[in-house]
């Protein structure tokens, strides 16, 4: 492979970097000219959209398969489709940010978003432990900075601090776990690792490495009990950043997670008592899934802040998606990815709606949503679509996501019975989740507010909400179309 091929393989990432540079120059120039911040936002977000469009175009014409040695870069069709999803989420985030982020460093904000997205791109296309770690860090570090971007708000700083602190600890876990794996197998290529581990007895070292890797990932996807950073970070960070963390970061994280686990740890059996015929990470995933579903859903019940509520709901959804991870080795990961993508779409939309409400009322508490149907019917209906999709009500995408996941876990054959009670628990906690989702909709549609003024939506936000709602509906009406490409 020569450098020309390499450049072609990385054309999307390259374009994004180039545009990041263009944004830096353009915004710096405008700032020196003393132009209004609104104009700078518009120009920067416009360039971001252009970057997304360009990257999307180059994704379409890049030629898979591209393979670098040691699994550094392995591009697959699914990876390319997910990169497209990341681009969509990135552009939505940019549009939400354009109207809501309070900062003087406008160019930097969008540049960091792009850099984070590049990290996610690499996460989606690598099968190398080191590369995966670097990509993860690239994505995360940009997000740490973004979380603290609202410098006038102390909560934003707190969010960034906590996010960074826990991210650092988790990175340490992950890196330690990965280096143990490297020590055991002598390779960084995930496929080689998988082959070596498949006939290796379950030594304490391997088990420790497995737990450490799982803990690192659990942090990344905010699975309980490694989720404690999430509510504080989501609440404090600028809404657009929270939206990006909750959506794009999760899609990329799960895609990487499921790839590494199914390929890299396929046959790591728990052989101490010889009864369990599944890879050992599976029991960890079961535990994490159970914790997340229960903790996330129960803790969400009493939240007053919608952002915190969405954070706990994100924890719960991570629990559901872990079920998909469990089913992935035998049945493929498309049920999981369908869930992740549709969840990301609904979440980005929901955060967009929160951003609109917060901008007009200055609060994201539940009662700020009261009488939303009167104040902005469009916003209310979009919000209903997102919330009902998250709750899993047909015909929206969330229902089919849950349906495919639960069907997948029930379809798994094997000696273990855990799939039944796991699916049962997932269903039961879904019922619990209806309570807090409907609390939001009750405020939106039922509760009246006397002195409510109408909420004006600026055009980009209106487009984001409308497109996301349409996407949620379309993915629910034609689930096969999306499932086929994932």
């Amino acid at each position, binding site marked *: 492979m020569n450098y020309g091929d390499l450049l072609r393989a990385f054309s999307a990432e390259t374009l994004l970097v180039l545009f990041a540079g263009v944004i830096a120059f353009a915004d710096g120039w405008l700032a020196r000219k003393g132009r209004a911040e609104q104009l700078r936002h518009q120009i920067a977000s416009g360039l971001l959209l252009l970057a997304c469009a360009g990257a999307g175009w180059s994704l379409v014409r890049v030629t898979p398969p591209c393979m670098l040695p040691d699994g550094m870069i392995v591009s697959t069709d699914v990876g390319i489709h997910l990169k497209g999803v990341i681009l969509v989420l990135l552009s939505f985030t940019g549009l939400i940010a354009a109207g809501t982020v309070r900062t003087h460093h406008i160019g930097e904000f969008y540049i960091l978003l792009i850099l984070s997205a590049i990290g996610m791109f690499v996460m989606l296309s690598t099968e190398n432990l080191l590369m995966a770690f670097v990509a993860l860090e690239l994505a995360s570090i940009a997000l740490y900075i973004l979380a603290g971007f609202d410098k006038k708000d102390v909560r934003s700083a707190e969010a960034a601090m906590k996010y960074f602190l826990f991210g650092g600890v988790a990175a340490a876990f992950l890196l330690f776990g990965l280096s143990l794996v490297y020590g055991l197998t002598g390779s960084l290529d995930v496929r080689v690792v998988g082959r070596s581990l498949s006939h290796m007895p379950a030594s304490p070292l391997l088990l420790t490495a497995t737990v450490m890797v799982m803990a690192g990932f659990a942090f990344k996807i905010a699975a309980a009990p490694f989720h*404690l950073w999430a509510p504080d970070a989501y609440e404090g960070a600028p809404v657009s950043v929270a939206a990006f963390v909750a959506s794009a970061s999760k899609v990329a994280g799960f895609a990487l997670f499921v790839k590494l686990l199914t390929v890299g740890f396929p046959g790591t059996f728990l052989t*101490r008592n010889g009864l369990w015929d599944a890879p050992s990470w599976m029991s960890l995933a079961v535990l994490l899934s159970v914790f997340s579903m229960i903790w996330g859903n129960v803790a969400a019940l009493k939240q007053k802040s919608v952002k915190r509520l969405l954070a706990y709901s994100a924890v719960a959804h991570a629990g559901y998606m872990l079920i998909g991870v469990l089913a992935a080795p035998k049945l493929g990961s498309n049920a999981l990815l369908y869930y992740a993508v549709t969840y990301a779409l609904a979440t980005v939309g929901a955060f967009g709606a929160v951003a609109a409400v917060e901008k007009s009322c200055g609060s994201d508490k539940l009662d700020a949503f009261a009488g939303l149907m009167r104040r902005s019917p469009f916003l209310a209906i979009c919000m209903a679509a997102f919330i009902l999709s998250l709750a899993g009500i047909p015909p929206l995408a969330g229902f089919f996501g849950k349906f495919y996941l639960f069907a997948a876990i029930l379809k798994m054959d094997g000696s273990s019975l855990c799939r039944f009670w796991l699916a049962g628990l997932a269903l039961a906690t879904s019922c619990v989740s209806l309570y807090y989702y409907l609390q939001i909709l009750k405020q939106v549609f039922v509760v009246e507010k006397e002195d409510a003024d109408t909420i004006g939506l600026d055009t980009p936000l209106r487009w984001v909400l409308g497109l996301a709602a349409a996407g949620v509906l379309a993915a629910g009406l034609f689930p096969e179309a999306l499932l086929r490409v994932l």
Partner: protein
Amino acid sequence: MISKTWETLLVVKLLWIIPAIPMLAAGVLALTPRGYRRMAASLAIGSMVLAFLFSCLAFYATMIPLPYSEAWRQSYNVPWFDIGHETVRVGWVLDPLSALMLAMVTFVGTCIFVFSTGYMAEDENFTRFFGFLTLFAGAMLGLIISNSLLLLFICWELVGLASYLLIGFWFHKPSAAAAAKKAFMTTRIGDLGLLIGMVWLYSETGTLLFYDGGFGCLETKALIGLVTPAISGGTLAVTGIALLIFCGAIGKSGQFPLHVWLPDAMEGPTPVSALIHAATMVAAGVFLVGRMLPLMGADMILFSGSSPTLYIVAMVGSFTALFAALIAVAQTDIKRILAYSTVSQLGYMMMAIGVGGYPAAIFHLLTHAFFKALLFLGSGSVIHGCHHEQDIRRMGGIAGSMKITFATYAVGMMALSGVPFFFSGFWSKEAILHAALTWTPSMLPFIFGLCGAFLTAFYMTRMMGYVFFGNYRGDSCHAPHESPATMTVPLVILAVFAVLLGFAGTSFWPWCQSYLTAQRVRFGWEEFLHAWPLTGGSIAMVAAGIGLGWKLYISRPVGGADAPDILETMHPKIYNCLKNKFFVDEFYAATWVRWCGAFASVSDWMERFVWGGMMRGAAFFTACLALLNSETDERVVNGSFDGGCKVLKASSGKLSLFQNGKAQRYLCVIGAAFALLLLALEMGVKL
């Protein structure tokens, strides 16, 4: 030649457009508000004209394969839906029969639609009227082109519905509402037979398509299967199916004993009577028998040339022809006379099919459609001119004030009576009588037909005498007046056709009959000269009828409005019997209707006390169960659910408190969690 065949195929493929146009118009009109009267009328007439143009195209397409190659009948079938492993298919067929009917229905329909704009001008439900009319037209055209008994049955029921809606169009009149109900229920009796016959046919042959490239139920293969006695008592099956289908025709075409609805149907607006209850829908029964003729006559094979089914058809038809003509003699309502005349003429057509004169029957159907539509529209014009007076005893002498109506009405009357040579009715009736004469099994149809011809001429002359001659006997304040041009122009057009159409089927040049049977038409005098004695006899009959009518009703003008009819003074008993329609309605009221009423009372009693008691018991039992259920629900289920919810909320609060925002605690949790997971794995926890 090849391209011409291709054109024909395209026409066949697109034949569905013809019924679709009025159907579409009906759909639009159903949603049109009352105020848009002009739009409604122009939409309805426009759709009819368009359908007429397409029908002409279809008619032309059937002429292309002449001279009489195999392509004279084309069908096109499409799958409709699947049941199990069977695919139900429907289709449409283009052959001389359907082409002629299409052209006739759309042409007559257009004339009547135009007439209606004048006749219904003052009605406030003008748009609804045209909506129903177009619905009828669409269904009727669909019926004509159907290549499947199922599709035909659907359209058959749709025309029945349209007929019901239009008879009861003035539903605020109790008599109209009752007539609509009567028509609907009476025809339903026949339709039940048709439905059973259809199901039976499907179970025997496995298809309801008429023509399907050799596999349709009217084609040789299926018919041979039906009449081979080795298979499931073939002769019984085919005769039974055919007779059941004929039941449908009896109901629709007002044949004895289900004729009672048709005269009552005259409660509807006159254009409706003209279109539906004279020209088109009632002829659907004849059309059905004509369409199913291969099946109807299939048992001929087993009975050496004479089919029991067709024998029954001929007998029912000829009896009805005479029976209805007799009743018509003593009626005094202008539209009822025409209604009985219609019943009688339909009897002629049935008889013609029964005696083997299928082309004659269809030819008579066509000519009758024109002159009967003409007569009905003429009577509409008379009624309009006499201020909605329908009793002929209160008319009289209006020939002078309604010249156009009189002239056209006279043409229609002469066509119906069969006045020789220049009127279409003469030629078609002649053809029927000729067919009846040559039928060997029985002479009854011929005799009945001849008597019917005499009576027809007589009662039409009587009606002319009452309506147009003598002195005006109505309310003298309101002199009769001529109708507007929208009404008279259709009359003139129809009158022209009532004359001209006869020349398409004379015995010198029987084009129509040849066209229907796909033979080459030949010009010659032999046929006419051969049938001369018959022709002479029937002319004599007509002359006698007209002469008698003239003597009794015209040369000596009718006295006053309340003076008894001249026949009544001569033979009061016979006249009374005829006036009361042989007491058929009374007979039905005393038998079937009473029996049904008694059965209904018994059912009502059973319902109230026996079934109702059981229901109340079941309801009480259910209520007890429900009480138990609700108590359980309240105490056990709700209680535990509420308890569960409380626990959940409390734990939610605890979890929120646990998340106190202190990073130290969070990090401790991570450490603990890590240790826990490691421990779990080390212990080999089996999940």
